[in-house]
């Protein structure tokens, strides 16, 4: 893929490869859609503005259906402007193996990019979506706002991977909400490995009867980076499941990790985990786990740990001849390696590659 105003390197950092096998593509630069395509029957990918005309229910029910338009200044700004973003729809019972790739590029200096996406999976549909967000060049600066509303029908399944590769001059405000229908499965996989000025992100999943929402996140906070991020799973139906797993490394950056599970119905089960690794004394990791139970027949738990690299592990590797640097980087890689069940091997490989690339460039 060759776009004059976009560094191909930046696309690699979010794993975007238009030639690789995928079921569909989407690419937007600032507010201009550069690429949009579905290569699969039963999969619709179209600009949200256009989808309003094709599917009236979007504007009526889905657009700001689970995100409050008055949530903050950005949602209001977004509500009042022509929406730019994708509408992805997978028809009933359609199961797609190849992932869909989407890229959000930010290029215009000093501007605010407003994105609004809506994903709708009909009953029994399955898909994996890989979203990459990056600055178009190393020098771009400004604000990115990305609203994503996700609606999962009964028994449907969505793997939603988000790879962030912003620069230290960009502020990012994603707003995510997910409605997980009966017995539907939602897996979110968030990876942010490069410097960013500020990210505030706290997606909320409403999980209906028998459904499950699982959030995995990997954050590497470089010096000067500020993350206020996490996830919330509201287990609103009997037997709903939630899982929130975070790995945070601070190399001088600040990370506030918020995780919340709330169980209101019998048989709801949830677990969350936040492990933080501080590489030096300049960083801060602040883990804020919250559990809320409103029914006796629930099981919610959390684990959190913040600390440094174990001296014992470090010296163990060094007695084998590895330098301290090599040993540290192996341990950090290992720490960030969460095995995400249900993620297709191809997406996992892509995630691993993105992590590998940025660790190689940073430790």
């Amino acid at each position: 893929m060759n776009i004059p105003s976009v560094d191909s390197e930046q696309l690699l950092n979010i794993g975007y490869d238009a030639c690789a096998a995928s079921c569909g593509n989407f690419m937007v630069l600032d507010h201009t859609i550069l690429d949009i395509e579905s290569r699969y029957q039963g999969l619709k990918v179209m600009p949200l503005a256009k989808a309003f005309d094709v599917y009236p229910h979007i504007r009526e029910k889905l657009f700001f259906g689970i995100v409050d338009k008055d949530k903050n200044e950005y949602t209001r700004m977004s509500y009042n402007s022509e929406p730019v973003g994708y509408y992805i729809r997978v028809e009933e019972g359609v199961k797609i193996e190849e992932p869909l790739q989407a890229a959000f590029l930010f290029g215009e200096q000093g501007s605010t990019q407003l994105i609004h996406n809506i994903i709708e999976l009909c009953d029994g549909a399955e898909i994996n979506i890989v979203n990459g967000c990056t600055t178009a060049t190393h020098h771009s600066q400004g604000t990115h706002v990305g609203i994503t509303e996700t609606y999962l029908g009964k028994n449907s399944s969505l793997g939603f991977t988000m790879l962030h590769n912003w620069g230290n001059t960009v502020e990012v405000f994603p707003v995510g909400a997910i409605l997980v229908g009966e017995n539907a499965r939602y897996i979110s996989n968030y990876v942010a490995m490069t410097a960013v000025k500020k990210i505030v992100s706290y997606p909320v999943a409403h999980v209906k009867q028998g459904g499950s929402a699982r959030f995995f996140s990997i954050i590497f906070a470089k010096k000067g980076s500020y993350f206020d991020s996490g996830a919330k799973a509201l287990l609103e139906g009997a037997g709903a499941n939630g899982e929130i797993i975070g790995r945070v490394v601070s190399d001088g950056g600040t990370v506030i990790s918020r995780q919340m599970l709330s169980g209101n119905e019998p048989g709801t089960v949830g677990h969350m985990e936040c492990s933080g690794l501080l590489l030096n004394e300049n960083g801060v990791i602040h883990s804020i786990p919250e559990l809320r139970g409103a029914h006796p027949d629930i099981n919610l738990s959390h684990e959190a740990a913040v600390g440094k690299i174990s001296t014992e592990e470090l010296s163990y590797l060094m007695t084998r001849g590895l330098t301290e640097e090599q040993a540290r980087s192996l341990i950090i890689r290992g720490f960030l390696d969460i095995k995400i069940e249900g993620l297709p091997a191809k997406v996992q490989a892509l995630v691993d590659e993105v992590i590998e690339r940025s660790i190689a460039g940073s430790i």
Partner: protein
Amino acid sequence: MGFLEIKDLHVSVAGKEIIKGIDLTLERGKTAVIFGPNGSGKSTLLGTIAGLPGYEITQGTILFKGQDLGTLSIDEISRLGIGISYQYPPAIKGVKLQTLLQNINNNPEGIASWSKALNLTDFLQRDINVGFSGGERKRSEILQLLLQNPDLMLFDEPESGVDIENISVIANVVKTMLEKEKPISQRTRSSIIITHTGFILDYVKADIAYVIMDGHVRGCGSPGEIFEEIKLHGYEKCASCFAEQFQGIKTGDER
């Protein structure tokens, strides 16, 4: 210049003196075995040689190939040719055994054949020591040492917790590592082996035995004889007879 020369070594751990003046020398190609009761300072001695943190040398020196190990970092000691098989190796989440082996020595054939020899092929894709049984950990230690191929190998109870069949697997590998099939004069690998059971000595012949008690060397001499004494009379009762033997060796040395 000796190969390994430990002189009047005193080591403190967490402010407490554990090694209280140890002298020990080892020539190239030789194997020493260390006996001693629990808590006597055996692992502390090996850990100090390997340069592990927490072991503070308060007096004396360790010279290896003429270099003072007290001045070197862990990885420098390792690259100088010292490797250790841990009594209690740590587990490292997320790091595959294979990845570590490749970092030690990127030798795919070696990794494949030696892991097979140690029944560890299925463990290459597992995280280092995570969920490994006691015996599996010991085998993984030996595998790592094999790839590292150091001149001086420190084995801290390589056979404890290992079943009979795997003891012979481990011991035969160790025997090969130490070039025991070669004539004495041609051996270049040296080692110090800590053992309580002595099982490994049925396969790997040691040249000399040291008995460490309460941070001191209480005796040294023929491995077979000393081990027999310990089995018959226990450490405390033997302390005096070791001492006599030890004196003899010492005066012998000084002549």
